[in-house]
């Protein structure tokens, strides 16, 4: 019997998710032994036409990382979806837009103008912009369309499972691959990571007061962080209470507060709104002016609460662009 086929693909991503596959370390040998990798642009030389030549549904699973911004990414996502039995959104960007989805706060024209004209390192007196179609000497070149909106994978194609994280931890990936290869898969739509808050994995949980009350939020550079005490008890915005576990509280272990990359638990629809609700309601202040002062340490609500989830914000994008 032939081995199950697995494809890895990347879209609007930083490459960290690819790195996380390599982070499997010696376990990667087991993976390579158990499956045939049919596509992995970062590491192997398979082309789009190889995938196109395959029969529909002949890939057991595709692990796709990165958000969807261009028409090319969208086409590849559709192609891989058609050829795969299981489509897995791998990492925060594929799951909910991730860092690239911050661009949903800006119009396409603003982005193009800055990148090709206004940025301090750009020299472009003729204001040349990339075109989707270009002809010279009878040859034509096509470039992908740059979409108006950064989308999560499931806003473009049907997604079966999600592996969260920026980047996913090797442990979460390994567990997911084992479930996939053994055929013991949970119901469609499941996020393949424990459905508990990051606080549950955090060694600082003991020091989290029962009736938590925050005088004012301060940014991490504004105080000396206690390496053992709950960040919220120190008045530092930590996304742990509203964020899914699975990372084993890696950031608090490194003395940095959780930033929310594992996304929401299954009970939450809008991760950012829930985090906002959780972190602001525990303030001490009772009057508008005092509340505003206490919230000064969170100067950018979108960047703090929607750091990995702008595409999945119920509003999806700045609405008046």
């Amino acid at each position: 019997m032939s081995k199950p086929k697995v494809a890895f693909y990347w879209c609007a991503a930083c490459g960290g998710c690819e790195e996380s596959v390599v982070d499997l370390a010696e376990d990667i040998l087991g993976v390579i032994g158990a499956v045939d990798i049919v596509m992995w642009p970062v590491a192997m030389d398979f082309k789009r036409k190889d995938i196109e030549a395959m029969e529909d549904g002949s890939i057991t699973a595709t692990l796709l990382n990165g958000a969807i911004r261009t028409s090319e990414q969208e086409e590849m996502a559709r192609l891989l979806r058609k050829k795969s039995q299981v489509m897995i959104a791998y990492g925060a960007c594929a799951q909910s837009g991730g860092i690239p989805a911050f661009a949903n706060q800006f119009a396409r024209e603003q982005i193009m103008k800055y990148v090709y004209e206004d940025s301090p390192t750009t020299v472009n007196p003729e204001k040349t912009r990339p075109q989707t179609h270009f002809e010279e000497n009878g040859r034509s070149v096509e470039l992908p369309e740059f979409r108006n909106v950064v989308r999560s994978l499931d806003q473009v194609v049907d997604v079966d499972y999600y592996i969260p994280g920026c980047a996913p931890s090797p442990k979460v990936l390994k567990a997911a691959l084992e479930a996939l290869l053994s055929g013991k898969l949970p119901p469609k739509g499941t996020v393949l990571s424990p459905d508990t808050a990051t606080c549950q994995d955090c060694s600082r949980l003991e020091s989290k007061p029962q009736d938590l009350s925050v005088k004012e939020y301060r940014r991490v550079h504004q105080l000396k962080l206690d390496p053992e005490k709950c960040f919220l008890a120190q008045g530092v915005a930590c996304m742990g209470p509203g964020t899914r576990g699975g990372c084993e509280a890696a950031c608090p272990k490194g003395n940095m507060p959780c930033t929310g990359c594992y996304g929401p638990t299954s009970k939450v629809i809008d991760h950012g709104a829930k985090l906002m609700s959780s972190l602001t309601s525990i303030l001490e202040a009772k009057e508008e002016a005092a509340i505003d002062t206490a919230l000064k340490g969170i100067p950018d609500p979108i960047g703090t609460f929607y750091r990995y989830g702008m595409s999945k914000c119920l509003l999806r994008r700045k609405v008046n662009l």
Partner: protein
Amino acid sequence: MNHNDSKPQAPWEPRILAIFCNWCTYTAADLAGVSRMQYAHNVRIVRVMCSGRVDPQFVLDAFARGADGVLIGGCHPGDCHYIEGNYKALRRSEMLKRMLSDMGIEDKRYRLEWISAAEGDKVQRVINEMTADVKALGPLNLPGRFKDWDKEIAELEHALNGKGGECCSHAKEVSR
């Protein structure tokens, strides 16, 4: 219902979701009702036990589903039936206002008001004011905007289907 197409469409009227707490503002709305005070018909009132129960998700969801404005009513500071609930509402609200403005939603589309059970007239005034404010801003129409944004996706799907001549159906049916 009038199904006659030749008649001009009814002019746009804002739709405002009002979430009122059981103990103060909802009772005040009741008072406004039994006192026969008239107020704009544009609000749809939902009763919750406490303004502290209002999750910012509710507000975003209301906008995403087509509300043009969201009004939250709770007890005056110090009067909360659950002692602290309205303070939680206020704290969330301060951050939510900043977030909404960052997302391009005008300030006047969202409002938090303290209205005691005795202030039927305040319910009337606040609803009328807010309806006028939102009317002046015009429709928010997020469902329509979402549809517009997703046209670019439909276009590619259409182009691919035209080219390959096959449906972009997903491989769901393939046995696992």
